[in-house]
């Protein structure tokens, strides 16, 4: 216990002695962890957005006004038996008009009672990746070809997210790769900085270390202050990063959400806490490993 105090005191002296390099390593750790944190939080948000988009992935197939109920039923039955289809619903002309009215009532008023909107079959998918396949099969289905709104060209009448969904998937994959590469790079830089700071601390205390070795201080006792110093830098850096993320969450996030209201940006506090814990643990590991590497190279015991 007393030696723990000793380590703390010694590491604080080392800290004070090399304030500029200590600040340097703290800031590097802080920035690295901040960027890592932003990537983690951002990744979670994108995942959230994707899943909300995914849950909205559905196929709308317009149906001609004069289609017989029998044909519609047979198409709907056929659809329900398809793989990846969760629910199949039907929207009548009147319901379509009502839905439309709820978003833009002015236009509906201007229609003077006439209803240009077609009825539609709505397909919800349980697996959004299958959307294209199901849509293509629907277009090829002979029953549907009979009842589609624009005669002879059923592909016109089958609507789904198409390419935008696909693009979103590949985009998130790219973002993930870039994020991982960036995080690895930043961790590397942070370790190099810690390594250098601890090297300076070791050089500054060369004489003391020689005497400690001479009078028989145990290896752990000689290493302790330096490990502590590395860990101290890392913890301060990671707390700064956590603090900045918390500020971003409280002040920047509502603004972004206000500007992009249709996308769900809000994450639960639990998700943030999870990221914070990851950051602090990662910072601690970076600090300890960085100083351990420095000691391996510069502190022969």
């Amino acid at each position, binding site marked *: 216990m007393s030696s723990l105090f000793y380590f703390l005191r010694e590491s604080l002296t080392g800290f004070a002695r090399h304030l500029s390099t200590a600040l340097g390593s703290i800031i590097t750790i802080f920035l690295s962890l901040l960027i890592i944190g932003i990537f983690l939080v951002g990744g979670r948000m994108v995942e959230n957005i994707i899943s909300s988009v995914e849950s909205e992935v559905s196929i709308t197939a317009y149906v001609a006004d004069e289609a017989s109920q029998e044909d519609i039923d047979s198409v709907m039955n056929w659809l329900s038996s398809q793989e990846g289809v969760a629910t199949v619903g039907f929207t009548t002309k009147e319901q379509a008009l009502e839905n439309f009215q709820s978003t833009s009532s002015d236009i509906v008023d201007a229609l003077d009672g006439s209803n240009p909107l077609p009825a539609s079959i709505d397909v919800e998918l349980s697996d959004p990746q299958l959307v294209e396949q199901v849509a293509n099969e629907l277009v090829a289905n002979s029953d549907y070809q009979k009842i589609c709104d624009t005669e002879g060209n059923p592909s016109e009448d089958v609507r789904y997210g198409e390419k935008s969904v696909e693009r979103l998937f590949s985009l998130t994959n790219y973002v993930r790769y870039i994020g991982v590469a960036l995080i690895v790079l930043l961790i590397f830089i942070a370790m190099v900085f810690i390594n250098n700071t601890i090297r300076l601390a070791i050089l500054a205390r060369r004489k003391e270390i020689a005497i400690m070795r001479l*009078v028989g*201080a145990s290896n752990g006792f000689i290493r302790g202050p330096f490990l502590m110093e590395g860990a101290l830098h890392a913890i301060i850096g990671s707390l700064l990063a956590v603090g900045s993320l918390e500020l971003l969450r409280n002040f920047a996030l509502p603004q972004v959400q206000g500007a992009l209201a249709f996308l769900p940006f809000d994450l639960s506090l639990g998700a943030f806490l999870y990221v914070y814990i990851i950051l602090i643990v990662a910072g601690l590991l970076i600090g300890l490993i960085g100083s351990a590497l420095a000691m391996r190279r510069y502190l022969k015991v």
Partner: protein
Amino acid sequence: MTNETDQATAAPQAPRPRRAAHGAHSRQAQMSAQLSQSLPVLEVDNIPQQTGTPVITFDHVTKVYPAQPNRPALADISLQIYAGEFIFLVGHSGSGKSTFIRMLIREIKPTQGHIYVAGEDLSAMRNWRVPYLRRNIGCVFQDFKLLPNKTVFENVAFALEVIGKSRHVIKTQVPEVLRLVGLQDKLNKMPDQLSGGEQQRVSIARAIVNRPPLLVCDEPTGNLDPQTSRGIMDLLERINRTGTTVLVATHDREMVDNMRRRVIALDRGQLTRDQDRGVYGFDV
């Protein structure tokens, strides 16, 4: 334990060189024996009997540094040191004195042979146990190795602090050991406010504050004038009288000749002489 007979016949009533020279060096040893005979015999009281098991044993120890593969720093050294002895290790620069001491505190390992300290083989000792070996060996060096930003008290206390002694032990033992070396009035001085002799006393105090059974000094008086050196040697002798084994590497001829203790002489890595109540014995 080689040619005792020829030594004994040459100088029957002289202090008998017990473990003396090897082969070609016997002539030199003989000369030294005659020299010591011609010097006034000092009565050194109670030289401890070399009985029981030795504290330090060098068993055919050879050390070759990679930089000089053809010239061993120490070649086939075998000797024993018993508890309570006061030993001078003499020889010119480069004769292997420092190598001897560095091997003793296991800063380096012998290339061949074994060194036993308190029955433990240093070559086989695990790295993590080395600090515990060093706690039992006090070390004093020519350049004092004091920390300039700590006071006398803190310098001595540092040795106890870093081996995890409690504050209470530090508060009682440090003033006591500083009184023993005669610096009780200078506890709060910084090292650069002290003379060379006083700094060396601080360094000795630091070496013995943990009460090690063995005190090793590498040229403790190398930087000091003869009178101050005498004081340091008196101090070392006093420490020896409390039962501590003291090993002093030196090339201070006057000191060795005056004190007439056991002398181990090294010359270019060879053990040339090992003699009780010996003299420096090298022609300068």
